[in-house]
């Protein structure tokens, strides 16, 4: 029973260390833009192939969120959907356990 909350504590420490690492990196690293690694990867593709990034065109036409706001809205929706399901199921299970 001594170790009851070991995992919770470990997870807490991991998240705090992760945040500290971020703060340290953003304060000390010059040129850290925190762009997506997807975009950094595309930059490398452009360098390796010698074709500028602007010259890559979608093979299949694609809708793009017109602004960062709309993109973050859709990402939040995606996460909210996942959170809803998880919360619902855990609640359902807790109710089942209480009843049993």
């Amino acid at each position, binding site marked *: 029973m001594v170790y009851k909350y070991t995992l919770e504590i*470990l997870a807490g420490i991991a998240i705090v260390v992760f945040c500290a690492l971020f703060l340290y990196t953003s304060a000390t690293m010059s040129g850290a833009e925190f762009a997506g690694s997807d975009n950094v990867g595309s930059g490398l593709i452009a360098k390796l192939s010698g074709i500028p990034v602007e010259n890559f065109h979608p093979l*299949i036409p694609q809708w793009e969120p017109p602004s960062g706001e709309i993109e973050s809205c859709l990402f939040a929706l995606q996460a909210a959907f996942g959170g809803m399901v998880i919360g619902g199921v855990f609640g359902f299970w807790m109710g089942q356990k209480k009843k049993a």
Partner: protein
Amino acid sequence: MHIMEGFLPWQWCLIWWIIALPCLIFGIYQLKKVLRADREALPLLGITGGFIFILSSLKLPSVTGSCSHPTGTGLSTISFGPWITAVVCAIVLLFQSLFLAHGGLSVLGANIVSMGIVGPLVGYALYRLLRDTSVNIYITVFLVTALADMFTYVTTSLELALAYPAETGGFVSSFILFMGIFAVTQVPLAIVEGIVLALVFKYILTLKPDILIRLGVFSKEKIEAARSEI
């Protein structure tokens, strides 16, 4: 880990789609079988799938000064195996390529192979290796999750290096360059993801040990032992 739409030559798109499709079809078949055998598996599928939805939408900063996202495939891999995980990943990736311009329809096959197939497969191999040993359940979940996450990004690097070998050094030097962007960024994320999902697994284990036993995720003795530990 998304390869952006248009950044992969059509020949490679086709190859990855050809690899991904049979895995998806087998995954759908397995999913039907599991759900028909045991309706109680549906809530568990909801939780493990829900974490793929949440974690793959979180863009987290990393030590390399760029951002990347975890995959969240570990729990689903352990509970349902890599093929069903591939189906859930395909749904998430389809959503992202249709509405978010992350990835795209032509590169969807390549992205499914990295996030939904190779990553979970490597994780699943490790899980099978550790399942019947005396290694602690939570350590197993941690390692499997972190490995599935890492190998997703290793696979993305591989896919890009195959399509874009460097002029000098060819495939290998190009692979190292892509690994430098994708895999190194991912290391801290994979560790945190592993710990967090191990914690989630503890809650599943506390609330619903019977479904894990019925699905044969871990042996009854091992689950009982893990329950008495906490």
